[in-house]
């Protein structure tokens, strides 16, 4: 059978394509590398969610090679199997959107024209997007409605233009710390606003409202409230009868006909046997690193450098999210009994953010430049993760009664509240994806070798924002306030590698996310982004995929 659309991957970049094209009556086949967990399969089990490789591949079967800069300025490579540092995010139907925390900030108009707005920075490869915020805005609104975004719009200095007055779902319940943040911010003339979340606060089409489980990020949602591509879009697509999902299907090669048209997706099935799917249009959304890897692996005489890569741009200019984290502690002894009980309340959210310095116009700091976002969050409830951080002090192992006291005090006498800083990860020549020449996966294919070089400018901006956030925490009387801004990578925040643009020599995709060089190949995960903005990517990936879906519906009429 020849399908209308073959989609590789099923996460945020794939979900809107699957949803919209299935509903439009097209026959859609989805090849998902991971298994198919349903909402009823998800429980709150730290063992399954974080201690074992249940939602990610076993590293001895599938690994990455990471190339990082050391203090001596040189780059060194190490496989993740060797280091034990997993670079996967969630391989399953719905992709890593199953396991996201779902902070859904839109990009701002300036994010679409970073280069022309702020000028070049030496050593960085910024590029303007070939579309504007106005082109994307209707699709942000669509995501808010279809996927479901909760919150309340509050005007602030960098609030992006909106076609709708407010979010479709009321805000989620909040911890008392949110109120304290509001009060502290007012004293400092610090502008904060409620964070929108891709989590519904009221039931919607077979999905239940959030029930405040206390275990959200890294965990599959047991109510369907979290707007994963699986719960919010793919389940709806399946109801049309036009959508077929093949889980445990690892695509390793896209085959062309010699005339610039993809005709087959070749994949390994659950048993490791080679299979193929024929379709009229192919959409790749395997998450940025793996998408570049697949195109680079899909070499043939027509595309000797990889599919759609005669420009040599595939895998270039990968971006992550710049910034870092900070924290402060509140001790229950410093509170009234009632305040302490309310602070301890599990499950409810902080949901506060600041974009006061989304653009920094501070002569004391330097010329006007792009800033970023501060999100205020609770420490994750994972017990093991918290305890592991307590077993060392200044590099020395702590154990015995000293360790037990330390753990008991940490869990029973205080709460740690955190802030996360998001700034642009400037694209640069040292951040890219290649095929590793030596290490292969369990099928014998080369694994992705990911260069993780960052630009020093990102750290400068990150530290500026961290100082602001630290000041707010100190204003609240919090103890042990600190922050860490670095070039360390969050593997769940990845984009770029197949940037879109108008010039086929400097970009992989056109403005509709179709390959410049291939007639029927689209890429709809975060790969298209020439720059990433200063917020997490999922909301924009969803919105762009809805935008491309509209284009595809027109094209396939």
């Amino acid at each position: 059978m020849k399908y209308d659309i073959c989609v590789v991957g099923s996460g945020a970049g794939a979900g809107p394509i699957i949803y919209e094209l299935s509903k439009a009556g097209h026959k859609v086949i989805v090849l998902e590398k991971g298994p198919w967990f349903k909402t009823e399969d998800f429980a709150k089990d730290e063992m399954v969610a974080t201690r074992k490789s249940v939602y990610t591949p076993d590293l001895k079967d599938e690994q990455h090679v990471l190339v990082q800069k050391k203090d001596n300025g040189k780059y060194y490579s190490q496989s993740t199997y060797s280091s034990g540092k997993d670079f996967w995010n969630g391989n399953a139907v719905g992709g890593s959107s199953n396991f996201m925390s779902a902070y859904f900030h839109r990009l701002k108009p300036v994010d679409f024209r970073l280069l022309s707005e702020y000028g070049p920075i030496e050593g960085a490869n910024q590029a303007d997007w070939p579309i504007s915020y106005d082109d994307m805005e209707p699709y942000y609104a669509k995501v808010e409605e279809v996927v479901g975004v909760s919150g309340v719009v509050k005007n602030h200095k960098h609030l992006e233009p909106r076609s709708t007055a407010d979010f479709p779902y009321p805000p989620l319940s909040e911890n008392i710390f949110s109120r304290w943040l509001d009060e502290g911010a007012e004293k400092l003339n610090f502008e904060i606003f409620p964070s929108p979340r891709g989590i519904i606060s009221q039931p919607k089409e077979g999905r239940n409202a959030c029930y405040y489980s206390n275990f959200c990020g890294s965990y599959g949602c047991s109510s369907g409230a979290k707007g994963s591509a699986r719960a919010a879009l793919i389940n709806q697509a399946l109801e049309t009868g036009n959508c077929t999902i093949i889980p445990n299907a690892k695509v390793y090669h896209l085959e062309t006909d010699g005339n610039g048209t993809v005709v087959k997706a070749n994949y390994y099935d659950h048993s490791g046997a080679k299979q193929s799917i024929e379709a009229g249009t192919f959409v790749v959304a395997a998450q940025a690193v793996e998408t570049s890897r697949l195109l680079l692996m899909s070499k043939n005489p027509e595309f000797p450098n990889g599919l759609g890569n005669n420009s040599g741009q595939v895998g270039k200019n990968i971006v992550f999210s710049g910034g870092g984290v900070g924290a402060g502690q509140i001790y229950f002894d410093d509170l009234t009994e009632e305040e302490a009980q309310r602070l301890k309340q599990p499950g409810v959210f902080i949901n506060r953010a600041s974009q006061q310095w989304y653009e920094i116009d501070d002569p004391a700091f330097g010329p006007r430049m792009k800033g970023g976002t501060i999100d205020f969050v609770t420490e994750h409830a994972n017990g093991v993760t918290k305890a592991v951080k307590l077993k060392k002090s200044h590099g020395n192992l702590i154990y015995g009664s000293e360790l037990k006291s330390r753990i008991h005090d940490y869990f029973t006498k205080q709460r740690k509240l955190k802030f996360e800083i998001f700034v642009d990860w400037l694209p640069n020549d040292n951040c890219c994806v290649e095929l590793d020449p030596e290490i292969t996966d369990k099928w014998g294919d080369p694994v992705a070798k990911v260069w993780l070089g960052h630009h020093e400018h990102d750290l400068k901006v990150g530290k500026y924002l961290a100082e602001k956030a630290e000041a707010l925490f100190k204003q609240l009387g919090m103890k042990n306030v600190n922050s860490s801004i670095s070039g360390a990578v969050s593997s769940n925040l990845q984009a770029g590698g197949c940037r879109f643009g108008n010039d086929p020599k400097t970009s992989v995709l056109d403005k509709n996310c179709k390959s410049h060089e291939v007639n029927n190949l689209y890429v709809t995960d975060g790969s298209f982004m020439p720059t990433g903005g200063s917020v997490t990517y999922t909301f924009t990936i969803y919105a762009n995929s809805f935008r491309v879906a509209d284009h595809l519906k027109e094209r396939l009429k």
Partner: protein
Amino acid sequence: MDNEWTNSRRNFVKTLILSGVSLQLPWIQSCSQKVQDIPVPDNIEPLSLNSFLTIYSVMDILFPDDGNGPGAKQLKSDHYFLWTVNDPNFDPDTRSFLLNKLEKLNKESLRIYGDNFHDLSRAQQEDYIAELSETDWSKGWLSRLLTLIFESLFVDPQYNVNPDTIGWKWLNHFPGYPRPTTQQLYPTILNKKHEV
């Protein structure tokens, strides 16, 4: 249940003696009181009895029953160690690391003290662990054991650790709901992972 175990374990010790494990005889005599105090599961594969008693004793030093909440023995961290190294999905390199360093600790204890680790006095055990916590070959291993103890402190009691949620109660830890059903527990959940 405890009586059944005691009988079973006594029989095991008898078998060792009768089977002529001659080198073990002095050890059995010298540590008889200690052995009586340590509940040995029926199946301790792939560990020898000696290794099992050592891991039990090391974990007891790392996370003692000191009156401040449960220790490793109440949490059944030793069972968890066995479960972990018997997990066919567990990384083979990490498994070898855990077992090889355990064997090395036993050998070093014999070399330095002329005795098995679990036969040393509590003070000697504490001194030796303090030394090992700063020694290159062993500090990573001890750190890894602590992580296993933490897992036995925080994961669901259905994994046969953290009995009666003693770890959660001690730390006022809210585990999140729904708790896993038997079908959702690791490694059963992996069946779902491989479902076609």
